[in-house]
């Protein structure tokens, strides 16, 4: 008895280790393994034997729908949860990352980690924008955009509860620095007027942000004159003229940040050195890529850890379910397997047939889970409180890579769940198998 327990514990540990190892393997190795298996099935004598034994086993599947669905649904659950949570992290990270590039840089007050906690006076913004590394537009003006971030509260369209939305005050230079901001409908705001353009995610997430309507922010009425799409975190913001925002929110002349377009991404270090060397400036600078990556890091990592932990626990449970099913399957087929062995089939085909059956069931489960995750979350959006203390809306990104990762997990679970029962079937003495009822 104790020996049994000990062997069970060691095999469980081995199984978990194997699961981890498999999870780390790249996806192509899996395709390769499948190709090798198919080749073995069709080309070698033992392989063909194994395939016919596997077919016999799978022919009995319709007689045990309950047991087969335990494997399929169990694994679908693991893969579904894994893919959904990882696509959540992926969506968050790519939404924030796409806001950043290597050839734009963001200047913040020294020590500030985020725009909302930063404050630059206009002189600082002007001096930093005049540096030679900053690209100039056709009229010879530096492509430097001083921006003011403030936060307002608006009701969400989902439940009507107020949530924070970021308002970004910008100057004309912003259009050149952020070329990815495209007007979808309406027009740009007119400088000096209380006019707003709204990001498409913000328009969807918050109530009353429709084109042409009026909204009260900071105690003043604003007209929404346009809707824009940038494909990144700016989509969750409202944009307006910087001076109007400053006066409504009584911010004085300071801005939060300065974003500049560099003439070349390689000039960033020179730009950084120039700012550091100027005694008039007390600022920090980073490329927008670094800036936005840092912001998605913590939450993205938390979701990934949560997703992977939950998926591992569920995967171990699914392994138990698969073990259960396959032990039962073998118990039902004991006599059949023993007969095959008595007829001279070697153990390899028996082992492979049991493994093949489990892995095929697992693949079916993995495909089901991945499909469910894709169908349910493919167009799902979520939002979180970003570093500017305002909502960042992002989509779940169910990417092919994530779907492949899900299938990989499915195969790993099937392999582990099938291996022990397969070995049991292969080692079963022929005589006792024949006697079994």
């Amino acid at each position, binding site marked *: 008895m104790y020996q049994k327990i000990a062997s069970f514990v060691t095999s469980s540990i081995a199984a978990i280790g194997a699961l981890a190892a498999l999870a780390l393997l790249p996806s192509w190795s899996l395709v390769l393994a499948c190709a090798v298996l198919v080749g073995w099935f069709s080309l070698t004598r033992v392989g063909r034997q194994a395939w016919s034994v596997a077919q016999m086993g799978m022919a009995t599947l319709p007689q045990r729908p309950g047991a087969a669905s335990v494997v399929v649904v169990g694994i679908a659950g693991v893969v*579904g949860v894994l893919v959904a949570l990882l696509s959540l992290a992926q969506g968050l990270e790519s939404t924030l990352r796409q806001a950043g590039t290597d050839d734009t840089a963001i200047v913040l007050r020294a020590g500030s980690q985020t725009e909302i906690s930063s404050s630059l006076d206009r002189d600082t913004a002007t001096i930093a924008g005049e540096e030679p590394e900053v690209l100039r537009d056709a009229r010879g003006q530096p492509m430097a955009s001083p921006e003011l971030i403030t936060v307002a509260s608006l009701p969400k369209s989902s439940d009507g509860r107020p949530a924070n939305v970021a308002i970004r005050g910008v100057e004309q230079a912003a259009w050149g620095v952020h070329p990815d901001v495209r007007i979808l409908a309406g027009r740009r705001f007119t400088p000096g007027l209380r006019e707003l353009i709204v990001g498409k995610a913000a328009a969807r997430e918050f109530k009353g942000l429709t084109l042409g309507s009026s909204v009260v922010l900071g105690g003043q009425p604003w007209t929404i004159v346009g809707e824009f799409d940038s494909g990144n975190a700016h989509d969750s913001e409202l944009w307006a003229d910087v001076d109007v925002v400053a006066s409504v929110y009584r911010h004085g002349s300071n801005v939060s940040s300065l974003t500049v377009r560099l003439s070349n991404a390689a000039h960033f270090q020179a730009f950084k050195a120039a700012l550091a060397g100027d005694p008039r400036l007390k600022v920090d600078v980073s490329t927008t890529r670094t800036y936005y990556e840092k912001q998605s890091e913590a939450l993205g990592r938390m979701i990934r850890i949560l997703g992977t932990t939950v998926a591992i626990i569920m995967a171990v449970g699914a392994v138990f379910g698969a073990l259960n099913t396959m*032990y039962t399957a073998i118990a039902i087929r004991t006599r059949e397997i023993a007969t095959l062995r008595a007829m001279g089939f070697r153990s390899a085909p028996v082992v492979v047939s049991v493994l093949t059956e489990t892995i095929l069931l697992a693949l079916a489960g993995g495909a089901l889970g991945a499909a469910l995750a894709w169908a349910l979350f493919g167009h799902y959006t979520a939002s979180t409180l970003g570093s500017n203390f305002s909502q960042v809306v992002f989509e779940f990104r169910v990417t092919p890579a994530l779907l492949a990762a899900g299938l990989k997990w499915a195969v790993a679970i099937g392999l582990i769940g099938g291996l022990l029962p397969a070995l049991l079937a292969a080692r079963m003495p022929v005589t006792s198998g024949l006697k079994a009822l």
Partner: protein
Amino acid sequence: MKYLHLVWAAMLRRKARTLLTLLSIMLAFLLFGVLDSVRSAFMEAGHNVAAVHRLVTFSKASLTVPLPKSLYSRIEAVPGVSEAAYVNWFGGYYQTPKHALGGEAVGAGFFALFPEYEMPATERRAFAAIRTGVVVGEGLARRYHWKLGDKIPVQADIFAQKNGSNTWTFDLVGIYHVSAARLESEEYGFYFHWDYFDQASALGNGTVNWYVERVADPRQADRIARAIDALSANSDHETQTQREDAFAAHLISQYVDMGPIVGAILGAVFFTLILLTSNTMTQAVRERVPELAILKTLGFPGRGILSLVLGESVLLLASGGAAGLVLASLVVGLVRARLGAQIPLLPVGWAIWLQGLGLTALIGVLVGALPARHGMRLRIVDALSGH
């Protein structure tokens, strides 16, 4: 109860299967316990007993827009407000930017509003007396190995001092403790004097970020909140006053709405679990048909058979579920001990246990019902002759 050994014998019939099923159930309830602890940590944020006595007042325009300090005396005078204090937010870091600190510059009398922050009277007096004094939570002091009397240099994010220095140095004069385990995350506060802050800061201009009020009667909270907001109605600094717990819960829900995510995961887990255990129970009953027929032959009534099978499934679920919840308590306890309040986790309390055990009973009955009915309806003559 006298049937118990029969149920037990049935479970031991296929030890491997019972063990695997138990382990699956255990893992499902481990997830349930841990995820529910995360979820309730989010749900209960700000819901402490003292909080229902408190209101917070922010600028109506935005949380980031400051309010004049001149409101203070008028708020204090609002009937029903027993104490009030004002607070400025202060962001910075200790030693390296990785050690971010969220501090608060607080007006005199702030701690009178927070009775759950327990601190010796001598330390309270020291804080009142020392201009550069700071009071921190026990958790924060532990993390950075601070002790009373330490000088703590903090790099400010925004608030440089008038002398141009970005470094603020505080004297640690008090360390407070919070008894309630679920308020552990409150033990990371960093509080110093607003007067010192406003005078030394280059940006100091006599404004505050928010006010906190303590009301004598929580049932009057809504009326008092309206009265406070009326003070600044139609001015250029209109305010919005909310109960502190509602404010905190709302803030947290903006970070991440845990409910649907946790719900979806647990839904997937339990759907799978129900399928797995009901499959086990169906198998178990199917292979025991002859035995159940014998019991019926001996005169066991249909109800007896029903309760035997249901008993088995409920016992299976309950023991696996209890093991999972014990494991969840251990895991949560371990993680909390290791990481403290950095991650939102509440201890696995009686509410989670109650819910979990309720779930085991429910699922046990659910998965046992069909096989049990099958066993109950068994025709002895057919079952014995192997039909």
